[in-house]
């Protein structure tokens, strides 16, 4: 009887954690945009991201869809960025690796029924990788905004309309992807004995899954007040993917000649992806014809930040048919703790100088951004984060120019960013304190082809 009970426990012990883990795997988390940390586009990143009032290239798809309305020429862009974080917890480096990402952009202006319109598309993908997921439990301490966040696909698409010669309005959607489904594992597990091996196990699997998209809206307005002054207002809506995963293990547990029908059900619910609401007010001021100053102020509503841990529960039913044996214990349902986050104000500054050096057009750029951590100072949490001061520098060069007024051309942009994490002491749920600091470096370059 003891051996028979072991067999019953075996089915559950193997399959329960397996399916539990599979559910956690499917409950892939993708907290926010990778562009929220490192920016998008070489020029915009070099300006500290403070470009909402003066952006008409593909990065307008992220910073201000309304800016697309000022595009005069079709633009195709390709960029590459390397990001290397060094995150330190209690003096030890966290295992958060570097990321390489490709950025693609398209801006296609035209006229529809006589009105200037523009279509824009921007994407960032980490190599061939669309997304990477590494699960963790409630007890694990994680740099949740950095671990694999840059490795999520970033994809936005917008349309802009130039309403008047001074005002352009744009809007569109950013996209997230989620997976949910049901997995079934059935069969017999064989133990090594009497010439048999574990590879004689007759296990089988089925997967029913659905991939769905979740869209978060973007709206932007760009206003040319004066030749020297542009203003912008941008809103980005909240994006949330709620994921439900059910798992089903069904089969017979054999006790000698008797078979006992068994069914194990597991339910998992996760906020897989979450983009906070954001509102940006931006301005560009040109004190001289060769110098632009930029400032953006963004309110990021982190207060709804959900726990990235899956909430799971399970049920087990064994038709014992009167036989006497104990039902194996199941793991308890997950108790999620609050993320303890609040809204934050993030200022950004940028300056762009166009010195008259030779016949080729040069641009020198610098920027600064302050990214406060969304985590409350007096809260205890296993989510790790700290305030970041980001300093950026870059340059642009027109490699080729042609067409009427040299309107068409090929431009090379390059940038480097250094993000310094401020010292932060954070309390874990157990009461112990942990010291956080670090920095990250990003370097990148891009080509913009205007036609």
């Amino acid at each position: 009887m003891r051996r028979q009970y072991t067999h019953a426990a075996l089915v559950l012990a193997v399959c329960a954690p397996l399916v539990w883990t599979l559910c956690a795997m499917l409950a892939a988390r993708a907290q926010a945009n990778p562009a929220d940390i490192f920016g998008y586009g070489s020029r915009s990143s070099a300006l500290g991201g403070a470009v909402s009032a003066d952006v008409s290239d593909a990065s307008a798809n992220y910073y201000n869809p309304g800016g697309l309305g000022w595009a005069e020429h079709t633009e195709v862009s390709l960029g590459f960025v390397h990001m290397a974080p060094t995150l330190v917890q209690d003096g030890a480096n966290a295992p958060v690796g570097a990321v390489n990402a490709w950025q693609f952009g398209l801006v296609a202006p035209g006229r529809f029924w006589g009105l200037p319109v523009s279509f824009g598309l921007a994407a960032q993908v980490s190599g061939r990788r669309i997304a990477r997921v590494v699960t963790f439990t409630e007890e694990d301490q994680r740099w949740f905004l950095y671990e694999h966040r840059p490795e999520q696909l970033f994809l936005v698409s917008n349309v802009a309309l130039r309403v008047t010669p001074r005002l352009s309005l744009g809007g569109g959607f950013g996209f997230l992807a989620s997976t949910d489904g049901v997995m079934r594992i059935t069969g017999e597990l064989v133990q090594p004995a009497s010439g048999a091996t574990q590879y004689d196990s007759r296990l089988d699997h089925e997967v029913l899954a659905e991939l769905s998209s979740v869209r978060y809206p973007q709206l932007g307005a760009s206003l040319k007040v004066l030749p020297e002054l542009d203003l912008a207002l941008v809103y980005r809506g909240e994006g949330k993917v709620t994921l439900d995963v059910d798992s089903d293990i069904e089969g017979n547990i054999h006790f000698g000649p008797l078979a006992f029908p068994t069914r194990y059900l597991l339910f998992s619910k996760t906020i897989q992806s979450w983009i906070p609401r954001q509102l940006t007010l931006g301005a560009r001021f040109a004190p001289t014809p060769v110098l632009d100053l930029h400032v953006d102020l963004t309110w990021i509503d982190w207060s709804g930040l959900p726990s990235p841990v899956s909430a799971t529960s399970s049920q087990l039913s064994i038709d014992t048919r009167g036989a006497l044996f104990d039902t194996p214990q199941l793991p308890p349902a997950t108790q999620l703790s609050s993320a303890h986050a609040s809204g934050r104000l993030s200022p950004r500054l940028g300056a762009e100088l166009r010195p008259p050096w030779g016949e080729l057009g040069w641009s020198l750029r610098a920027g600064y951004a302050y990214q406060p951590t969304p985590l409350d100072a007096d809260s205890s949490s296993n989510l790790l984060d700290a305030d970041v001061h980001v300093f950026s520098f870059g340059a642009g060069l027109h490699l080729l120019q042609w067409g009427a007024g040299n309107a068409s051309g090929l431009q090379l942009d390059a940038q480097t960013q250094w993000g310094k994490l401020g010292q932060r002491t954070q309390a874990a749920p157990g009461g112990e304190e942990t010291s956080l600091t670090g920095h990250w470096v990003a370097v990148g370059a891009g080509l913009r082809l205007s036609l």
Partner: protein
Amino acid sequence: VALALALFGVATNAVATPAALFGAGPASQAMGGTGVSFASDDSAAYINPAGLPNAAKAFAFGVQAARFALTESPASADSLNDESHAILFGVTVPLPFPDPVSDRLVLGLNVSSPGAAIARVAILNESRAQFPLLAPRADALNFNLALGAKLPWGLHVGVGSGLLASLDGKIAIDSGGDAARSVTDDELVLTAAPVVGLEYAPNEAWAFGLVWRSALQSTFDLNVTVENLGSLIVPPLHVTGLAGFDPSELNLEASHVLGSWRLALGVGHRAWSALHTLRDATVQCPPEARPCAALTAHELELRDTWVPRLGVEHVQALGAKAELALRAGYFFEPTPVPAQQGTARVFDNTRHALTAGYGVRFAAPVNLELQMSAQWHHLLPRDHALVRDDRAVTTSTQGEVVGVCWTLGGEF
């Protein structure tokens, strides 16, 4: 519009593409899936990128729906009827480089996505009744990006790629200690299928097209290891399956324009034989442990197919600023799946497809085009010698597929 664009990132678990089932774009779908020699809108990004140089700066968006009425007689307990919906988006953008390549390059994007649900994955036991090459294929993302170039002597060339994504990962479960611990590390990676096309139009009357499209395959592949489960030993588990598959294709087509009529005739070769299984065995037997009693993967034994296509189009003016195009077509799609034997019920039937549709184009300043297509596929009845409950039975499969598509687009 933007919705459909989302989706190359989310093509995670697509099961082949609807374009391979119905064709791309309503004009081609209405003409029996022809277009290799004349498609010049965004659908050329899929059909033949060499047609893109004839495209203007234009966009199109629309919807597509299909209903699958499939039967197994005697009646199956597994539901075989299905339906699919998709959102379509396309854009073509000429790239006005300076001479000598001015007005010669056009970029095209063609996307269809099955609504809010981007793709469905159904990796089923082969003993379940299923038509894996029909409904699941219509419920998958189709994303194609291509560039066409105009060469001298009436030659056009084009290159592009279809995109899907695969899920690869590993799960390590360690049951040592007080509670089971596990580490999951998985990733979605892009898989691409290059497309190369050629179009030759020696004069305004004749056009010839040739396009090769490589196989597009995405997989669902998770390797699971379990350790420290007391004295129990668990073999590595492979939760795997085919998430998407379009076979490599070679399509050849000729079209002739005579006044207001266009006639197109084409043939395509589909290399289905490269697909061996829908899913691998859960427990895979290592060489040192062979032979094993573990379940083995079911071999599909598919064969390559030839698909002939015929399309006709008639264009007539509707007043001074509009024109109407009426279209019809036919294609014959032999099944690559052999008649099923034993317990496997992976069905597919040879199909005759009749197609029709129309397009209304309004000239400037409206610059809009409305297009519609409808397809009716008739699945020829087919018998299978199966085993159910240890008894030999003969079942028959047949069915109908109806698909419709609308798009609205225009130049901008």
